[in-house]
């Protein structure tokens, strides 16, 4: 019994072919959207941009091809050209859509990998904040400042991270001053630590001018109001939220595209089976059935399994009455001779 059988008249078949052609062209457009998204994200969130680029390109090619096929399929004569290609095309597209689905699910699973790499990256950037004269690190100050301003965050987990590193370069410290020397001697590594933060931690939403220094000893405001002065969020959290948001929206887009491709694929399958049945019936004007699978799911699976099982044993087809089944491996030559006899007669 056929799975999902639908009867098509000639007019309905032509309509289906037209609609599928249009949908295929829309899929080409969505493929280009994916490609564009991949290019846009090329700043490299791991391997996701490359996946998007390849998926987008593949979608464009496959759907372009599919659009051409569907355009020809309305007419039975032109369908004959594509008859043999259609089944491989459908299988190919099915695998492709599963790849698209896998890609979409990957987008959602990326969060944990990002967190670790962000933590390490930010910690190093803050450590080398003061090294504006070291080649290779001279831009880190600017990068961290712009990052804190843009993402409205301060430090790794909070503003106190700045208390533990020396972010003022020794070039700008007056080594002859006793205050400076005392501070540097007060810790093991000889770093000039202070309870202050860079200016980029200042919040624009605060109603009063920014207090950056002497944060632990400030007596004019209490702890809660001081919190308003600086950005409260840590940059790791801010960046994580930002990139997770991007990933989720990309994942959603790719999922929607996957659903669309599946719809197009189902339509192409129905069109293929309907056209084949029309050819079998012989009358191009008649109604024909289109289906998803010719037999039930179990039977199709079993027959496919048999085909694959017998792929390597082409001389031992069990259900062909014209060939004697040899009982021993040495007699394999017999069936081939018998086949030859049949052909010549």
């Amino acid at each position, binding site marked *: 019994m056929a799975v999902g059988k639908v009867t098509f008249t000639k007019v309905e078949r032509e309509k289906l072919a037209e609609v599928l052609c249009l949908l295929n062209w829309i899929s080409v457009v969505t493929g280009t959207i994916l490609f564009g998204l991949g290019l846009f994200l090329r700043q490299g969130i791991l391997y996701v941009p490359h996946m998007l680029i390849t998926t987008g390109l593949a979608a464009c090619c496959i759907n372009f091809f599919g659009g051409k096929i569907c355009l020809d399929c309305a007419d039975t004569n032109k369908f004959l050209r594509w008859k043999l290609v259609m089944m491989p095309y459908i299988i190919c597209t099915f695998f492709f859509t599963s790849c698209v689905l896998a890609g979409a699910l990957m987008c959602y699973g990326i969060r944990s990998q990002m967190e670790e790499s962000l933590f390490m990256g930010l910690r190093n950037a803050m450590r080398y904040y003061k090294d504006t004269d070291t080649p290779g690190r001279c831009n880190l100050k600017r990068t961290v400042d712009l990052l804190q301003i843009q993402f409205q965050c301060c430090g790794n987990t909070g503003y106190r991270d700045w208390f533990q590193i020396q972010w003022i370069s020794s070039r700008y410290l007056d080594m002859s001053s006793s205050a400076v020397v005392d501070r540097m001697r007060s810790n093991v590594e000889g770093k000039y630590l202070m309870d202050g933060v860079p*200016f980029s931690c200042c919040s624009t939403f605060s109603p009063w001018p920014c207090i950056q220094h002497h944060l632990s000893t400030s007596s004019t405001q209490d702890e809660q109001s001081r919190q308003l002065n600086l950005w409260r969020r840590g940059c790791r959290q801010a960046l994580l939220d930002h990139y997770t948001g991007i990933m989720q929206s990309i994942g959603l887009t790719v999922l929607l595209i996957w659903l669309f491709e599946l719809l197009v694929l189902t339509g192409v399958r129905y069109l293929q089976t309907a056209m084949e049945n029309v050819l079998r019936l012989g009358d191009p004007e008649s109604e024909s059935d289109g289906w998803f699978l010719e037999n039930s799911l179990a039977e199709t699976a079993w027959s496919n399994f048999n085909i694959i099982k017998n792929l390597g044993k082409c001389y031992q087809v069990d259900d062909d009455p014209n060939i004697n089944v040899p009982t021993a491996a040495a007699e394999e030559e017999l069936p081939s001779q018998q086949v030859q006899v049949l052909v010549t007669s």
Partner: protein
Amino acid sequence: MLLKITFTQQRRVRLAQGLWLMSWLAVMSGAFIFCLGVYLKTELLRRAEVMDNTEIHVVPNILMMVGLVSIGTNWVATRVCQDSLDASRFPRWKLLLMAWFAVAVLLCCLLLAVVVLSYALQGRLEESLKVGLRNGIRFYKDTDVPGRCFQKETIDRLQMEFRCCGNNNFKDWFEVQWVSNRYLDFTSKDVKDRIRSNVDGRYLLDGVPFSCCNPASPRPCLQYHLTDNSAHYSYDYQAEELNLYSRGCRQALTDYYMEMMNSTGPGVLSVILIQMSVLVSLRYLQTAVEGATALEDPEGESVGYLLEKGVKETFEDVKANVLNILKFAQVDPSAAEGSPGAEDAEKPADNTTEKAASPTPSPAS
């Protein structure tokens, strides 16, 4: 005849087809002009808090209006093209085409005016920004006054986004009190000295807000005691360049908007070109088709032209027509004086539930 061209039937068909395509192109360019106007308007509105007046808004307003009218006008041109080769349907467009040409010329003139205005209004924009920024800096500290409480945030974000400081430069901050009295410790000697040191009793300091700090500076930002070389180690006030943003916000904003309007210049000029070519082609099509319908053989050759008579004669004709219309309008009021009088008479007559049968001039109540 001015610039006449002979058209065979084949050529007329080609002209109609080409014009149809070009009219749709003109519709797209009308939409482009509209979107350009919308974009400019939103950009100007975003910074409306630091602008004193809205004179500069005339540029995007004209662009939006011209865009909309252009879409409608060129859509009408496509309809005319479709009907042009059908002898029964073309005559009904005759009257409309005269008005269409006038509207198209007006649109081109308006677009040219926009290009000129965007250069001419630069001075007004600078003035508006100067006053707006001065107020913004003055009210920076008033975060508790309703109506001004967002000035601090606006100015901070502006300075960070456009990488600028103050009105002309960072020294503008030395002349205003930008730290509110709420956050000053009046028991401190330093604060009291500073307040007493000037006539108005303001707390002035040689410091700037944090938003003036330049992230590209190799040194952590110095905000306070900027003129005092001894306050910071290895610091020279005159030689220090990268610590703060050196540009003034007025200059930064003016440059930004001028660049935006200049970059739209080529686009607007090409739209003018497209509109003019649609106008010229439509004129040729109209005259050629009208000439063809007047022939005995409608499929034969006809002559298309821009103007039937020379430029001077056409101008005289148009002037005469316009004067005629004006004279006609002048003649009418004297004859129509009776009827408005009748209407006035009917109103008080209606109040008394009496309908006046004949127009009798009566004083209006």
